[in-house]
């Protein structure tokens, strides 16, 4: 196929971006990566189209070339395309470099054995250092443009393969401040330095000449020697966090102390750090932040590098409101603590943060992030546990005034500020603060009242109701120990329900979410609120939903009276179901008295047959089940997963009681000694219950068609500690072969639940199928055996097996293992054994005479399929002893 047109590519790229996975699964998916590489060299496509192709390969290399080999080939092709470009200025060089880098890394092809890596790395370094040897990049002005790109590619490669540039630290240092763009170079130097130090420290090695070598890692020049992978190999491909978020757990931080450094190296290091920090100002704010995170955490714990190095930067950084910069200062604070920030510095930082968290010139997301930082502030001497949110000690309530909630704020801001207010209210420490806390609590109540008023508006959006309930939840969670706050909250919420019963789902959700401190009083208040009404208003549906949650044993007479009154207004199915739902929850809570009358009335009078049936069922359950069983039957199921649908959830507990539950095995089952009874082989089963089981039914299943299906075995009752009679399970083989029985148990627990459990499978061994022939009259054994032998011979199979003997000797072995089947015994040296293998096979053995370590056995059978089984059996005879 020839190159695609611009339109065809535009369409293809659009389709791919719509859904990459669907496109790749489609007919064009397979060839996309190949076509793309080919058409990059097409002369018919414009550079703009090619740039869009390269953009795709930068973003989705892992889809286009998923494995390392493909990625390697793609990177090679991209590099070839780069070399094929004419010396004219071109917009393709930059994206080609980026795409080749992305393809190598994303495909996992970057490494010492990769040819593309070996080409790309020196090329990038040469470009970056301004020493393009082979003149690929024509004009000098374009080279300068590409210089920054090359540095960025190298930084990405170093990020994905730490230690990669360990060999050129000296070179980077030399270039810094002399040549080229300062930002990418300093960021790469900081990263490579940090990575190199961590790798060396982990290996417990010294710094070596890491900082002083000043030439290309390839030796003489960009292309003369292979790339130096030593440090990257030492690093073992292990990724290094560039800004460890969990400093204590990082071996990078503390591990640096293990680095052996000579005084000169310490000096060199300090000089490099100082150089990097000096030019920090020249970087863009986001890059400054990156550098500070990298140096702050990266060099923490390094000997001879005082945190005071950072000090000259701090005033400048604290003056800005730039998020990235203040965040970086916080990182330095967390890394060095008191060593960098005195108590006064800490107070200043807190003041700046607090001001920034409410500064009207900054956007709301920034405010909220600063507030988060304040509540998780890395204090010099924290009082509480460090993972708990709370205002820092130095930030008194006085300073937080501007961070308190107001009804005019956006919901998220309001909640964040409300949270802070709750935390301030919870703090009833020293005496002099009491008045202020009292004032804050008053204010809290005002805010909550305002939120409730907004939520009570019938035309209000759901968001205002959601906000009100979230605020109530926050208050209940933070101030659970403050009864006065909770009392007024309860009253306020009860009033809100009175104003707007349609919020019932929110109330149910709140009751489900809050702790008992609020749940119990609120439940009682809401129940009273509901049952004091007549039940005749339009909100009956909500009242019933509410009541199903809050009704209980307390105040049952008023509840029942309300329900009785409401029943008359339950005209449609949904309302009747809601009414029955309340009855059900009353049943579950063990309300009996008047409930039976109500149910009986409902069973007779409800218009909908479904409703009548339900009522009758509840009545029957109430009449026939004990209270605990009722609770069990109607209570929520513990094993079933919680389903979101209320329809399903509603019946879960009830259904659980009436259907079979999957359960872990509640008894142990094993095969006992062999018994020869009746015309077929029998397995003796020993039962050992782990808990009381009733109406136990054991079901057996044999795979394949080897045996006839087995009947289930019933046991009325099994109690732990009380011996159970062994069970006999008759087997009906269709062929004489060992097998495995799958076993499952169905039983009822003392609580009335029916459970089903899979038990470990049982093994039926070959010898379990042995049956004796009817014993011949006395003294005719020998003739009987010879006749059997002769009758088998015509179509039988004969064989001879060496049966090793253990220390016990032949006689003991035979009597223990083969006793019932011996027809002729010329003790101690020869035995004739006849075994009937159901359904119709025979196995005849002649043993002896016994020799020193075994006995030779001649065997004859009319079923050749049992020969290998018999052979195995005989060879294993003595082992089983």
């Amino acid at each position, binding site marked *: 196929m020839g190159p695609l047109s611009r339109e065809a590519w535009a369409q293809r790229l659009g389709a791919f*971006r719509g859904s990459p996975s669907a496109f790749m699964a489609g007919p064009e998916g397979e060839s996309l990566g190949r076509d793309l590489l080919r058409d990059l060299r097409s002369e018919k496509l414009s550079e703009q189209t090619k740039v869009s192709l390269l953009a795709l390969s930068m973003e989705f290399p892992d889809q286009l070339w998923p494995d390392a080999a493909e990625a390697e080939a793609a990177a090679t092709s991209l590099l070839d395309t780069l070399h094929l470009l004419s010396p004219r200025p071109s917009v393709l060089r930059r994206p080609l470099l980026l795409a080749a880098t992305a393809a190598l890394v994303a495909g996992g092809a970057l490494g010492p054995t990769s040819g593309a890596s070996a080409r790309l790395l020196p090329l990038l370094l040469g470009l970056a250092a301004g020493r393009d040897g082979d003149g690929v990049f024509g004009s000098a002005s374009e080279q300068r443009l590409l210089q920054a790109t090359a540095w960025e590619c190298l930084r990405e490669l170093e990020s994905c393969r730490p230690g990669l540039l360990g060999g050129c630290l000296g070179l980077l240092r030399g270039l810094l*401040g002399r040549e080229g763009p300062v*930002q990418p170079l300093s960021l790469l130097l900081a990263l490579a330095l940090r990575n190199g130090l961590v790798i060396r420290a982990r290996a417990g090695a010294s710094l070596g000449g890491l900082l002083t070598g000043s030439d290309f890692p390839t030796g003489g020049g960009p292309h003369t020697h292979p790339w130096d992978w030593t440090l990257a190999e030492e690093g073992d491909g292990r990724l290094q966090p560039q800004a460890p978020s969990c400093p204590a757990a990082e071996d990078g931080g503390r591990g640096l102390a293990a680095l052996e450094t000579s005084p000169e190296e310490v000096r060199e290091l300090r000089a490099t750090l100082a150089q990097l920090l000096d030019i920090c100002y020249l970087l863009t704010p986001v*890059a400054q932040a990156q550098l500070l995170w990298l140096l702050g955490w990266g060099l923490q714990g390094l000997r001879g590098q005082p945190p005071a190095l950072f000090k000259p930067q701090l005033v400048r950084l604290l*003056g800005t409101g730039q998020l990235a910069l203040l965040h970086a200062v916080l990182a330095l604070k967390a890394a060095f603590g008191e060593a960098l920030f005195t108590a006064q510095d800490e107070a200043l930082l807190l003041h700046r943060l607090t001001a920034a968290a409410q500064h009207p010139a900054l956007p*709301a997301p920034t405010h909220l992030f600063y507030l988060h930082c304040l509540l998780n502030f890395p204090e010099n001497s924290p009082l509480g546990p460090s993972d708990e949110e709370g205002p820092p000690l130095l930030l008194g309530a*006085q300073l937080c005034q*501007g961070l308190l909630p107001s009804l005019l704020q956006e919901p998220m801001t309001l909640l964040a500020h409300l949270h802070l207010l709750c935390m301030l209210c919870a703090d009833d420490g020293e005496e002099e603060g009491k008045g202020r806390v009292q004032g804050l609590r008053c204010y809290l109540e005002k805010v909550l009242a305002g939120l409730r008023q907004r939520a009570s508006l019938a035309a*209000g959006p759901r968001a205002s109701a959601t906000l009100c309930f979230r605020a109530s939840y926050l208050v209940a969670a933070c101030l659970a120990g403050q009864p006065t706050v909770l009392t007024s909250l309860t009253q306020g919420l009860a009033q809100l329900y009175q104003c707007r019963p349609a919020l019932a*789902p929110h109330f149910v959700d709140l009751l489900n979410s809050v702790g008992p401190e609020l749940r119990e009083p609120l439940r009682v208040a809401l129940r009273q609120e509901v049952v004091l009404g007549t039940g005749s208003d339009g909100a009956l549906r909500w009242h019933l939903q509410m009541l199903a949650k809050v009704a209980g044993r307390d105040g049952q007479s008023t509840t029942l009276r309300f329900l009785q009154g409401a029943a008359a207004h339950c005209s449609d199915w949904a309302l009747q179901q809601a009414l029955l739902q309340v009855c059900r929850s009353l049943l579950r809570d063990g309300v009996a008295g008047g409930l039976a009358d109500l149910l009986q009335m409902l069973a007779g009078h409800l218009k909908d047959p479904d409703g009548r049936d339900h009522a009758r069922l509840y009545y029957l359950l109430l009449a026939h089940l004990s209270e605990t069983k009722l609770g069990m039957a109607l209570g929520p199921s513990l094993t079933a997963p919680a389903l979101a649908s209320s329809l399903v959830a509603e019946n879960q507990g009830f259904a659980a009681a009436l259907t079979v539950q999957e359960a872990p095995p509640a008894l142990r089952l094993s095969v006992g000694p062999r018994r020869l009874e009746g015309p077929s082989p029998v397995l003796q089963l020993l039962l050992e219950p782990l808990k009381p089981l009733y109406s136990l039914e054991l079901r057996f299943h044999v795979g394949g068609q080897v045996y006839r299906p087995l009947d289930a075995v019933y046991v009325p009752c099994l109690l732990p500690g009380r011996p159970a009679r062994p069970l006999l399970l008759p087997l009906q083989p269709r062929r004489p072969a060992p097998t495995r029985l799958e076993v499952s148990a169905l039983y009822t627990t003392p609580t009335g639940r029916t459970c089903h459990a899979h038990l470990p499978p049982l093994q039926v061994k070959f010898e379990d199928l042995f049956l004796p022939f009817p014993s011949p009259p006395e003294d005719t054994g020998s003739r009987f055996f010879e006749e059997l032998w002769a009758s088998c011979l015509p179509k039988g199979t004969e064989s001879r097996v060496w049966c090793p003997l253990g220390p016990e000797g032949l006689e003991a072995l035979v009597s223990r293992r083969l006793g019932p089947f011996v027809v002729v015994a010329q003790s101690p040296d020869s035995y004739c054994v006849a075994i009937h293998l159901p359904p119709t096979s025979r196995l005849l053995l002649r043993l002896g005479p016994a020799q020193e370590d075994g006995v030779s056995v001649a065997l004859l059978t009319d079923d050749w399929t049992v020969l290998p089984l018999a052979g195995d059996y005989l060879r294993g005879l003595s082992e089983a002893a």
Partner: protein
Amino acid sequence: MAQRAVWLVSHEPRTPACGTVRFSRRYPTVEKRAKVFNGASYVPIPEDGPLLNALLFELGLLDTDKDFVESRDSCARINKTSVYGLRLGGDELWPVVAFLKNGLIYASLPLVEQTLSPRPSLINNSGISQAFELLFGVQDFLYSSQKSDAELNTKLGQLPDLLLQTCPFGTLLDANLQSSLDNINVSSMTQPPKQPAWKTGTYKGKPHVSISILEKVKSMQYDKRDLADLWQVIGTVICKCDLEGIMPNVTISLSLPTNGSPLQDILVHPCVTSLDSAVLTSTSIDAADDSAFSGPYKFPLTPPSEAFNLCYYTSQVPVPPILGFYQMQEEEVQLKITVNLKLHESVKNNFEFCEAHIPFYNRGPITHVEYKVSFGQLEVLREKSLMIWTIGQKFPKSMAITLSGIITFGTKNPEKQPFDQICIGGTAYVKLHFKILDYTLTGCYADQHSVQVFASGKPKISTHRKLISSDYYIWNSKAPAPVAYGSLLL
């Protein structure tokens, strides 16, 4: 500190999907690292379709808020920062930094360089602030001087190239996209080694420094004995320095007259090289702190090429520029209102415009108005239930003006008349809109002599000042009004 992906989604209410992904960019090399760092807790990035849905759901922007949905509306789901976990099947994609602004959702997913369970704290993740910077940068680029949808589309079309420039591998190099765009267009890229990364190209031409001070004043006035009125000035100083040389040094000073109000909470641009400690510590949050520093406020800096916000400040002036009271009372079917406004004598009585908006929420259309104004004109927007009192350019000599009236309303039509959650019953406000040129309320100014330039040539220096109102409310004193904690005289 890198980003795994970034998205721009337009929020389109009342359409089937409620939104469209306008731009997305994934960073495969960062994703590779995320897989290793996150280990078993790694959640891959979904394709744009599922992401759109999950994002809109999490931000509560799908149109389906008719019924209570526990997974969205539950009271226990509380977000206190703009960082979300998006639910995708059984997994949760976290931390997605996202916010909605002007109908566009800006979202980014920073790399977390450790396992995600248990969830690490946000404060310890540098990627979070980098994500915010990236998104703010995109937002500034899209909305700086952008007027129409067509312009927005053009700018969205430029985004892929710009991000290739400023964020090629997911690690942000510069949040100032506009300057990067200029950078692409600068043909001669002769960058000397000591040139700051945030300064593109060099200026050639006559030296010129321009300084504009814009002050906004906001206020909440209650006219109640137990509530304190609040007001605050927020200043922004915008500079543009056209100066030759790589790193010209400039010092800009802001001065106050003797009776001026001290500047507080000063936040400076990162190009400011050093700060006086008095500038750093002067803050409004500590009422006990009376160590007011009244300048001059010196800002030594190396200016970037483009216009920049040198600093922001707040200030507490002794009196609000216009003091007002508003009384509204319901009398049977009518509303009786009185509004009094008084311009403070110290304020320059020369407005570009001055209006008082008097809205009536949660009521029907205005059917009848009888009114009397001592000054200016009253315009009545009947359908919108709004009255606009145009005061004009000057207050009269007495500096005090009055409006009184009796208003009758028709039956409410929720489609046409505005609904408000706060203005219920008697709760109501008058909102003032005004602008005064060549004036600042604090008195803050920058003059010819306040700018020192250490570069060749004497620059022309131009300065501008203006004051505008923003959120200037006068609440009905006859009914409850929303209060901030600072208003409670305890």
